[in-house]
């Protein structure tokens, strides 16, 4: 791998996602992009980040990227290993986790997540996706939710075909009305930029552009009439240290 400061948009996404995780927080980690970001954060600026996996590993400290949510390295390096019912009932449900870190097949304007079916008919789907897994209760119970997803008009839609996990519903106040504990998605990180919910409407708004990306490009990859924050920022490019750590993690 080159030592020059070149990087892919996926690397920018993982690094931007990692930066959002600050030290000492308890993070419920979905597999794939969230796990990469969480492990990168723990190996760089947030060594005391507590990683919780739905397989029952509390405080896992893997030295390489886990190949699955139930990789043996998670149990071997955890503070404690508990059963799957226990991780959901004693650790997630009561609100002990600060950040739920999720991926998504489809994400909509209000941060609602679909990982169930593409298409309007549940029984005759265009594409059958894997399903809910732990996501509905992670999205409901964590203090806040970060979503990391590769952005396109197929993934970033006006309204998800199926609400697998509730983001902000359809408006401010929906989470409270539904009795959902946490603040919901406060941050969405893609390969193009960073999005946050508008405090009034809860609609996702572009707040940061990754280096080299223009607003028009983001709009083209968004399935709704995208709002842009007045104080739109530029994501700092990955540092050499960040890239080195990310690549070491992936190669280990």
């Amino acid at each position, binding site marked *: 791998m080159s030592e020059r400061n070149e990087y892919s948009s996926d690397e920018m996404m993982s690094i931007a996602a990692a930066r959002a995780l600050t030290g000492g927080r308890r993070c419920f980690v979905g*597999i*794939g992009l969230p796990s990469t970001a969480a492990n990168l954060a723990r190996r760089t600026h947030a060594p005391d980040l507590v990683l919780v996996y*739905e*397989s*029952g*590993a509390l405080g896992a400290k893997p030295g390489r990227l886990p*190949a*699955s*949510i*139930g*990789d*043996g390295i*998670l*149990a*071997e390096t955890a503070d404690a*290993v508990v*059963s*799957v*019912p226990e991780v*959901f*009932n004693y650790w*997630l*449900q009561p609100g002990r986790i600060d950040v739920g870190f999720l991926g998504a097949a489809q994400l909509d304007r209000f941060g609602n997540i679909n990982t*169930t079916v593409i298409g309007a008919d*549940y029984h*005759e*789907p265009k*594409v*059958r*996706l*894997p*399903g*809910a*897994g*732990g*996501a*509905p*209760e992670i999205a*409901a*119970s964590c203090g806040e939710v970060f979503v990391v997803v590769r952005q396109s008009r197929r993934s970033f839609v006006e309204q998800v075909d*199926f*609400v*697998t*996990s*509730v983001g902000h*519903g359809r408006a401010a106040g*929906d*989470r409270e009305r*539904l*009795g*959902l*504990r946490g603040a919901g998605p406060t941050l969405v990180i893609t390969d193009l930029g960073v999005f946050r919910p508008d405090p009034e409407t809860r609609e996702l708004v572009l707040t940061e552009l990754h280096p080299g990306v223009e607003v028009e490009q983001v709009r083209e990859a968004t399935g709704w009439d995208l709002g842009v924050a007045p104080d739109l920022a530029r994501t700092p490019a990955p540092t050499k240290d960040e890239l080195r750590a990310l690549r070491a993690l992936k190669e280990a």
Partner: protein
Amino acid sequence: MAELVSLAEGVARLVRDGDTVALEGFTHLIPVAAGHEIIRQGRRELTLVRMTPDIVYDQLIGAGCARKLVFSWGGNPGVGSLHRFRDAVQHAWPAPLEIEEHSHAGMANRYVAGASGLPFAVLRGYSGTDLPAQTATIKQITCPFTGERLAAVPALNPDVSIIHAQRADRDGNVQLWGLTGVQKEAVLAARRSLITVEEIVDDLTPVPGGMVLPGWALTCVAEVPRGAYPSYAQGYYERDNGYYQDWDAIGRDRDAFTRWVNDHVLAGTTAGGAR
């Protein structure tokens, strides 16, 4: 006391056409060899239950063993979709597949209720999602003390639950360690149980993080070395990540899949690779 049997005998005695069958294991200790034996014995019309149906369920579905799947996440972990599962849901091949879909929290609590001899479990779940509209086994319940509304899900009580573990002793006491998932609950919730193990030993030396399921709570135990392959058995072998990757191409194509089942399952090479 659990009876020590061969895998073929255990499946023949405990798994019947039309049964509700759970093969559990959360990435770790997946009872793959037992799943292949079910295919070999040609079981039909099974209601398959599993939180994380993955390759072995893709194989069971593709081989026509299932009429229904009760689950919370169906995929090839770290790779992508299950194409046999998709083909059954989207095109009813080789047969229509009814689905009953929950979240992990809901499924885990359904097993807990089953293991506890309760008819239902209560959780904070599903609120605001589209799942309750599709899944009749998600209802609401009111706390008799606070008036709060919560989700209720019915107990899961499979006719037979099958898990894989590291070891058993000659009395059929079973020991497993590492990520132990929902295996205890799945076994205790079931009317009958079959536990495949890497080896049968004289004494179950205690292991940190280990759990013992007493033989008197189990039905049958079968020694099946590498019975969790291509998943892993902590302390015995690693996960074969290549098998999972290779499965994508095999599972994607009906003919490739049929050839694979014939060559690797029906021919009896239980421990064979995906390739």
